[in-house]
């Protein structure tokens, strides 16, 4: 399919980036290790090359690499991928580039890649946080605005990492508390084809701690990048990974309708959260849900939240409540 090009060039190998892999001592007795899984969902054999680039360093041809061949429908798991690339006894963190081809430099589809970076110290749960890969042509360009509201989880610390494209990036960050009363900005430049992690991200803004329900926005002023937040439990060092969300409009004073939005049955487009719960689970767990809506716009908006019971079609009888998200102070 992709190889038949009507005389054109065959497709190049596909590239995906895992922002961070590690074999590294961390805070509170943690020790971080990374695994990666790569699935070939296609009906042909695929060859993948993995390249590790040390933290906050531009990628180069001298970076360590390894290759694996995956049969049709198969999955390869690589445990402690940092050690596999950089050698036993090495500690550090790195960006991981995964290139897939037919083994002869021709792209034959995009493998499914998941990664985890977890606390492997004694007492650590080896709870695994998977960071979705980023296609190298999928970085957010200059002019994009990203945001995150999960910087102040209960009993958590917060890092974020920035992965850049081939031109590097310059990013202006704005921190705001829940009402925008405390607002701080910071601009940082990043190297090309690199990942830089901001540990204890509150330090970037001269804060001892983030305020409850505070948020960060990132305006990419030059180059391209993707940003991933990693809130981490202070007691267990369990962590998770989540990409910062693109903000359609900002507090720049412009009111913009959502580009490309389509109404559904004449109703405004909504955002679906798959599941919320108040429910006993296993083993001895009890599941509850919170939600945060951050108004990044220049005017107040009205928010309606509706719930539909599990495995039931939505109806007008479903419970709902309304709120008003005032705009935060500029």
């Amino acid at each position, binding site marked *: 399919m992709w190889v038949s090009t009507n005389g054109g060039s065959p497709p190049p190998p596909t590239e995906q980036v895992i922002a961070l892999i590690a074999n590294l001592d961390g805070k509170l007795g943690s020790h971080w290790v990374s695994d990666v899984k790569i699935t070939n969902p296609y009906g042909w054999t695929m060859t993948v090359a993995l390249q590790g680039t040390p933290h906050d360093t531009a990628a180069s041809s001298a970076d360590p690499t390894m290759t694996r061949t995956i049969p049709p*429908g198969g999955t390869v798991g690589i445990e402690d991928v940092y050690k596999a690339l950089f050698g036993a006894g090495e500690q550090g963190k790195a960006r991981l580039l995964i290139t897939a081809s037919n083994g002869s430099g021709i792209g034959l589809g995009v493998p499914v890649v998941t990664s985890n970076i977890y606390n492997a110290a004694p007492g650590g749960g080896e709870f695994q946080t998977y960071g979705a890969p980023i296609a190298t042509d999928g970085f957010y360009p200059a002019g994009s605005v990203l945001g995150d509201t999960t910087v102040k989880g209960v009993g958590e610390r917060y890092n974020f990492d920035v992965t850049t494209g081939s031109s590097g990036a310059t990013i202006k960050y704005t921190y705001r508390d829940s009402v925008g009363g405390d607002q701080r900005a910071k601009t940082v430049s990043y190297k090309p084809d690199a990942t830089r992690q901001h540990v204890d991200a509150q330090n970037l803004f001269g804060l001892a701690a983030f305020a409850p329900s505070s948020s960060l926005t990132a305006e990419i002023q030059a180059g391209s990048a993707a940003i991933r937040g990693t809130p981490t439990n202070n007691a267990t060092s369990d962590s998770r990974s989540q990409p910062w969300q693109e903000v359609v409009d900002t507090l720049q004073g412009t009111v913009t309708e959502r580009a490309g*939005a389509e109404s559904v049955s004449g109703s405004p487009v909504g955002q*679906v959260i798959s599941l919320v719960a108040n429910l006993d689970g296993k083993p001895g767990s009890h599941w509850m849900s919170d939600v945060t809506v951050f108004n990044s716009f220049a005017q107040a908006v009205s928010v309606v939240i509706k719930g539909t019971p599990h495995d039931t079609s939505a109806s007008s009888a479903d419970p709902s409540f309304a709120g008003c998200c005032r705009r935060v102070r500029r």
Partner: protein
Amino acid sequence: MTVEDVYGALFGGQAQGKARMVVITTDMAGQEYALPVTTSNIYNAASGGGEFQTYGPPVATDRFYGAGTVLCDNTVKGAGERYNFDVVAGSAGATIRYTYRDADGADERTVTVTYKPVATKQHVDAQKLFGLTSFAANSSIVAEIQAGSAFIRGTPTNNITSDSRSQPWQEVSISNQ
């Protein structure tokens, strides 16, 4: 705006259950407006639970995957974890054919499931869907949306702490179906 125990806020303080939730944002005149940054968490609040929070990013109701789309996840067999996944269907519901494969593709099992419109269905202990007692190491699941529209989110959960996380299944650009 933060709403704690949003299920209780919707269904009453004593109610127990699980539900799909939609957040609809308009301007103050009721007209469609841009989407805000919305984050949610679902966490183990039991005594001894770490309240470690897993955020599932929202999906816009006009951004579901359509028929012909193929999705995949390979995180079904984490060490010391159990694995559920939930399917959120669009306005026409969805029919999805799942294919389970072990590490070398030798054990391959398929099952087709139909979902109600505008609904979420969670598959708890997802291995049972394929008649398995457990998933094999380095196994994967492919989902082919045959009709309607949907998206799928996997939720691996630690067996000891019940800490959990949420991750969308990834789109596969070409399938071998």
